[in-house]
């Protein structure tokens, strides 16, 4: 294993150990998501959604939960001096950002493992079409990857700038609008009963967004974390 991969693994393992020891990111995101679904259930007149509205509710809730998660994920780097400690070691900044991105992605996948059934139960008008489940899961995994890639970048900027709570939503929301828009187009036909076919261009768009932000995060992480 290369030193870079070894550093990514060490930081990722640390994130999960910290989350198990003192859960912060996952409970925050979970409570927010399920709470939002409950509020939508009672706030919307008939309490049920499908199609584009269902995709919008699911994705905007995910985005806002992720913004909370990004802030929490970088809290120790800022509040406990973790970033300075890391910068004194030979480990590269890109390994830190990659590990944070992977951690956020894995947290978002766990979030959806719980929040998606809750969403279907509380809000989806006719339940989830059995044939569409795998495509919905794939769509959410691609969306989560994009959020994680952009979120790692935003988190690094906010941690280095030391004004995390203000910067994370300020930077993350505009960056994630194209992702949410494309994911909504991809998921809306699948959240309709019976499920329809998603146009291929939306899957390609999601994959491109993920690729671009993975590349950008990797390329600029040294400059952000070091300076």
């Amino acid at each position, binding site marked *: 294993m290369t030193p870079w991969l070894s550093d990514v693994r060490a930081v990722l393992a640390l994130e999960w150990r910290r989350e198990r020891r003192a859960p912060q990111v996952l409970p925050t995101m979970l409570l927010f998501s399920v709470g939002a679904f409950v509020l939508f259930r009672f706030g919307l007149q008939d309490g049920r959604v499908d199609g584009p509205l269902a995709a919008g509710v699911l994705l905007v809730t995910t985005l806002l939960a992720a913004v909370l998660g990004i802030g929490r994920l970088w809290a*120790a780097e800022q509040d406990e001096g973790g970033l*300075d400690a890391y910068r004194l070691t*030979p480990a590269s900044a890109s390994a830190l950002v990659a590990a944070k991105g992977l951690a956020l992605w894995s947290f978002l996948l766990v979030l959806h493992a719980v929040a998606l059934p809750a969403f279907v139960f509380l809000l989806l008008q006719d339940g989830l079409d059995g044939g569409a489940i795998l495509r919905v899961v794939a769509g959410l995994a691609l969306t989560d990857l994009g959020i994680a890639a952009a979120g790692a970048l935003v988190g690094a900027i906010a941690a280095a700038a030391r004004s995390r709570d203000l910067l994370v939503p300020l930077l993350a929301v505009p960056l994630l609008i194209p992702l949410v828009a494309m994911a909504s187009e991809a998921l809306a036909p699948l959240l309709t009963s019976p499920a329809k076919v998603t146009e291929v261009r939306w899957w390609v768009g999601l994959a491109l967004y993920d690729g671009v932000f993975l590349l950008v995060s990797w390329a600029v992480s040294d400059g952000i974390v070091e300076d």
Partner: protein
Amino acid sequence: MPGPEGAHPDAAVRLEGLTRRRGERLVLSDLTLVVPVGVTVALLGPNGAGKSTLLRVLAGLMRPTAGVCSVLGHALPAGRHALRGRVGYLAHEPMLFRDLTVRENLTHRARLLRVDDIPARVAELLEATGLVRRADFPVHALSRGLTQRTTAAATLLGDPELLLLDEPLANLDPSASGRLGELLGPRPGRTRVIAGHDPEAALAEAQIVLGLRDGAPALLATPDRVTDAEIGALYA
């Protein structure tokens, strides 16, 4: 006599006109100093004099605004990557993860520092700092003194060539103070810059005394040439 005239090609630290600004304020102003390898520098000065800022600049954690700053033969900030793992910085902040245990913190840091035999090195430092019984306590459950010991152990994990110590014996009882004083003490090839507020102790173990006042050098001499009046003026 320390200073540019004492410059040596293998100097551990070489500063020439080092300046650091924070906005409009000069935090460090026109510092010139040469520290040969293996030498201990006592960094004195009142609160806010710029001691901690100087240590952060030397650690490569903060960019100099102007002047030359060379550490272990590498000009900063360009060469800061080459310093990673070779500089140990014991700061005011513990730089530890509060929810992890002492052992987990040390093991994680040792991995990133590429320490060869991590369990052996961690065990050695736990023993040396008297933390064996507290090794599996989370850091948030430790007293300030025990946290300081953990921080010292983390600083020494990679056996750094340059130690930057910001009040290293703060919060320690006399026994721990003696133990850590020995552990962080001089070694062949180990250069140390120690910031503190105890001039007597600093003069006893340093070969160079640098006094800062408002970021500017107010005193630069060998300990035998430093007078009580100069120390008094520094803190006046």
